[in-house]
């Protein structure tokens, strides 16, 4: 039976199917609205960019990109839900599964799931045994990415909600160690991992590596965002932009780059900030349509495999 067979169309046109579909889109809309509300309500008083319209454009693109990310992820999950093993339309299955998965996790499974995620998806225990270089490469990229994400959340909460002074003041401990050193460290991790990946993929070309457009785009996209971040920081330091005026050594890599940059480049800081911001947002939107989606799918698959009922006798 194909997807467009008459019997299925009939089923899809049924009231239940339309109700499920509507409910799923309402859920998607609610998630996007909730995210937009959070993004738009934050004051952004300490943001480095001075041009307010650039900030507003960036925020609008972030909201749109996150919406695309959620929609893409939802459609990928609907493809999963088209398989056998569950009842009802894919939309209905996903709707029923989301709260169940949430309850499953919060009812004492969260720590176990986190431990499995840390060991099998983040630490990649299996890859470590097979190839130390590839294991380091992946750990650097993913570790840097996750650290960056966590640091972003910490910074946003402490700056825009708590107005935590040590995070704002030029010589505050949190500003130096989290905003300056922390981000540089996470970025350096990612950069090192990405350079190893690029070297393997484009220079060494081991036989197992298959480079097609999606592989190259994903890698170059990530590299452009990370390198762009350091270039932006370098320009900020070189140009003496607000927030980059002192204690440069904490932003070690950005500072190193700034030494090669003329101070006049500071005049383009806002424009480069916008380009970097837009690229970061577009990267988020690109994830569900690229190989990077394994960041979402692999931990879910590992957890689903671990917790799904096995036949008696399975090893």
């Amino acid at each position, binding site marked *: *039976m*194909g*997807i*467009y*067979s008459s019997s299925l169309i009939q089923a899809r046109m049924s009231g239940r199917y339309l109700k499920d579909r509507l409910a799923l889109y309402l859920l998607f809309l609610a998630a996007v609205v909730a995210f937009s509300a959070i993004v738009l309500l934050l004051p952004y008083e300490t943001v480095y960019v001075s041009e307010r319209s650039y900030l507003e454009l960036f925020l609008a693109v972030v909201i749109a990109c996150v919406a695309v990310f959620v*929609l*893409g992820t939802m*459609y*990928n999950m*609907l*493809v*999963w*839900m*088209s*398989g*056998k*093993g*569950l009842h009802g339309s894919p939309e209905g299955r996903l709707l029923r599964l989301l709260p169940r998965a949430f309850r499953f996790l919060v009812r004492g499974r969260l720590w176990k799931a986190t431990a499995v995620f840390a060991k*099998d*998806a983040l630490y*990649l225990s*299996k*890859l470590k045994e*097979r*190839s130390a270089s*590839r294991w380091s490469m*992946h750990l650097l990229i993913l570790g840097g990415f996750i650290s960056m994400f966590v640091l972003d959340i910490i910074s946003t909460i402490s700056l825009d909600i708590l107005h935590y002074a040590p995070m704002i003041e030029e010589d505050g401990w949190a500003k130096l160690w989290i905003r300056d050193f922390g981000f540089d460290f996470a970025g350096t991790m990612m950069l090192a991992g990405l350079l190893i990946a690029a070297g393997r993929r484009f220079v060494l070309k081991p*036989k*197992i*590596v*298959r480079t097609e457009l999606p*592989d190259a785009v994903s890698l170059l996209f990530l590299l452009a965002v990370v390198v762009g971040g350091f270039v932006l920081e370098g320009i900020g330091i070189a140009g003496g932009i607000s927030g980059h005026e002192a204690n440069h050594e904490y932003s070690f890599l950005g500072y190193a780059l700034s030494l090669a940059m003329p101070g006049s480049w500071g005049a383009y800081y806002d424009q480069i900030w916008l380009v970097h911001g837009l690229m970061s947002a577009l990267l988020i939107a690109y994830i569900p*349509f690229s*190989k990077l*989606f*394994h960041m*979402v*799918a*692999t931990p*879910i*698959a*590992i957890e*689903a*495999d671990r917790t*799904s009922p096995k*036949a*008696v*006798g*399975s*090893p």
Partner: protein
Amino acid sequence: MRKLDISGLDVLSLMRFDACTRCGECTSTCPTGGEAQDIELVTPRGKILKLKEFCRMQYGLRAKLLGPKDIPEAQLRELASRSYECTICGQCKTVCPAHLDTISMWENMREFLVANGLGPMEAHAQIVKSIENYGNPWMQPRTQRSRWAKRIETEVKTKDVLKEKCEVLYFVGCTAAYDPNIRDMAENTARVLVNAGVDFGTLGNDEGCCGSTLLRTGLQESAKKMVEKNIELFERASPSLIVTSCAGCFKTIKQDYPKMGVVRPKVVHVTQLVNELLDSGRLRLDKRVEGTATFHDPCHLGRHNGLYDEPRRILEAVPGLRLVEMERNRAEARCCGAGGGVKTAFPDLAQKVSALRVEDAERSGADMLVTSCPFCYQSLKAGLEAKPSRVSMHDLMELVSMACSHG
């Protein structure tokens, strides 16, 4: 336009397509795709990416917005054919950094191919017909199934569990029962069980194919009939233990049967039972068997069921025998090339893979290549004879029987 029906693919399989990181770890160690042929589409990554691409073409976001795309029939046929070149050995599961359960993926993929009229291969048709008509894949009459037992009836009395109550049901399997080159496997297993004083019997001519071939080629519905019939016989015989000497039957009865029915007796492979008999002292190995042996882990016993120690402990218990390991052993063991219907549909490919394993055995310095699966035995023996090699092929129960005090 041909519309692919993906409703036969497991939710978990579809999830795993997205979870594949494209790293390629599976490509170099894949026995048929990477080592024997070097064809990307045969490798796990190749199959995953191609099938994922097809699914996206008709079910992804772009398909929802702009309509599904047509998939050229030739490409579909090529994917199907290449997918059947996989022995489902599970080496990819061992090496996958994303922990994908590729074994169930490939079995499910074949089910999907059959549902879409793309599988099994033409060469499998004869075997399927034979299983459906004769209850075995070898086109042999049912009445000949227990012929092996008659050959040894003067030394071993094999009971019929449907007529006499027995503690243990020995599920012989089609290959050991019918293939004249492997019949020794059934005979030696029976000898060992008698020597240990095990109260055992068989289903005689009523035993049907376990359904492994059908399940591995994606014919779930046909297999279900065989499975239900065998389960009914298990119920009638009601033994406390079912023992198999075939690794394929073992996997099928232990892992697949419970998905389709209730198997009350405990199911073990003969290596597990013999290991227990040796531990408990019920079986004693007194006679020396001189030689250096290396053990080939059957995929269905090792990677599919995690049984690695039992056969090795048995070999170590044989007086005079020295056990050496091949460079690739246990979870990393190279496949013999016969499984997953490959030997039937692609005999040349199976031979290429078995030749690689034979080379492994020769490099180990062993003079005996031992295994515990009739299919591996067939394939590796052919590989040794094709060379020809100084290494000789043995079934594990043959060596145990030689070492038993009965002589």
